[in-house]
Structure formats: C-alpha cells, structure tokens
C-alpha cells in the first residue's frame, strides 16, 4: 500500500505570506496527525483528526494555523500569515485505529523556511 505522502517537500516563503501544506494519509486510515519539528528541537504534536473531526488540537501554536480535513481524506495545514518561528519540518502521520497499540505511519515531511 502507498505510504503517507506530503506536498510540497520544501517551501520557502517570506514573512507575512501564506503557505498551505497537504497530507494524504494511507488509504483507510481514519486517524490523521500533524507534528512539527523546529530546528534541533523535539518533534511536537499539533493536532489529531478522526475522519473529518478535530479530536485534539491542543498542540496548535496559535490562530495563524488552520488545519482542515474535508471529507475525511487528505488534510491541509495553512499558516497565515507566516512568521519566522514557523520554520521547521512539518510531519503528517496516519493510523488505522487508536489506542496505545496502534502504530502511526509518518510521511516524509514538508520543510518550511520562512525568510
């Protein structure tokens, strides 16, 4: 089966611009997660979708970030307006089920650079 895919792989934008990241989970995976790694630091959870519903968005840093998952398939993460501290690698992951035993499959990430 195809893995989690993310687009674009890299994005370079200027401060104040808008960027939209896309994630396509593994087919049949109802659970979709967004994570972010700022340079040299830990990978941090942003939010979790179950189908099209936001189950947990406790990690979203502020209201400049908007995540959607219309139809419960792919998801987008929009940053508007982007700030310098938003630079980092944004990972998407998906899983079929929830619970402590389930494995999250990660995509390759989108490297975002805000100048």
């Amino acid at each position, binding site marked *: 089966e195809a893995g989690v895919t993310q687009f674009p792989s890299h994005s370079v934008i200027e401060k104040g611009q808008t960027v939209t990241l896309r994630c396509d989970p593994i087919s049949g995976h109802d659970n979709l997660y967004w*994570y972010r790694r700022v340079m040299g630091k830990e990978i941090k959870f942003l939010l979790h979708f179950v189908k099209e519903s936001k189950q947990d968005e406790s990690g979203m840093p502020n209201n400049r970030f908007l995540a959607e998952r219309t139809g419960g398939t792919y998801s987008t993460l929009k940053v508007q307006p982007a700030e310098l501290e938003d630079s980092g690698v944004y990972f998407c992951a998906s899983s079929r089920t929830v619970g402590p035993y389930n494995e999250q499959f*990660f995509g390759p990430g989108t490297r975002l650079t805000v100048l």
Partner: protein
Amino acid sequence: AQSVAQPEDQVNVAEGNPLTVKCTYSVSGNPYLFWYVQYPNRGLQFLLKYITGDNLVKGSYGFEAEFNKSQTSFHLKKPSALVSDSALYFCAVRDKGGTGFQKLVFGTGTRLLVSP
C-alpha cells in the same frame, strides 16, 4: 505530562561495534514507548515499541531496546553497527490526547554516525 529525554545530541561509533542510543522517560501510569528513525530526506520510520511483556524488545534492521522500569530508561541497541545505520533516532512515548492514547511525545533526537 509524559516526556522523554535523549541526553546525547550525537553518538559516534565505528562500524562493527555495538551501539547504544539512550532514552529516559517520565510517565504517569504504564509507559508505551517507541523508537523511530529518520534517514536523510525520508520520513520517520517505526523501529520498535514497548507496550507490555518482555523487557527486551526486538525491532527492525536488527535493533532492539531494553525497557528498564527502575531506571525509567528505554535505550536503543544494536550488537554490530553498520554505516547505513547513520541517521536521526527519536524516542517517543504515547500520551493521552482528547479521548485516550493518541499523540506521541518525542525526544529531541540523537544523530547516530557510524564510521567505516
């Protein structure tokens, strides 16, 4: 809140030697622990997990990890390192989200460099 610590930014080892990448955790309740690896220009790949049972967990690519409850550690090990093992390794613990065990809490990562 759950957390993990990876005390080493980088680990250097010669090919053929054993390797250890350290991880300690802090959890309330039973720990659900994971190791992921990120090769250059690739996504995070699952290596292994500890949920319950044997303290020595075997995973992909010949890696294993030892769960030590008294030392709250979950160190990643491999008996004989390969140059191709050079990558970024992340330890993680499962944390409770809005409705149960959902999100992963990661450490800062350890870069493993295996020299020929």
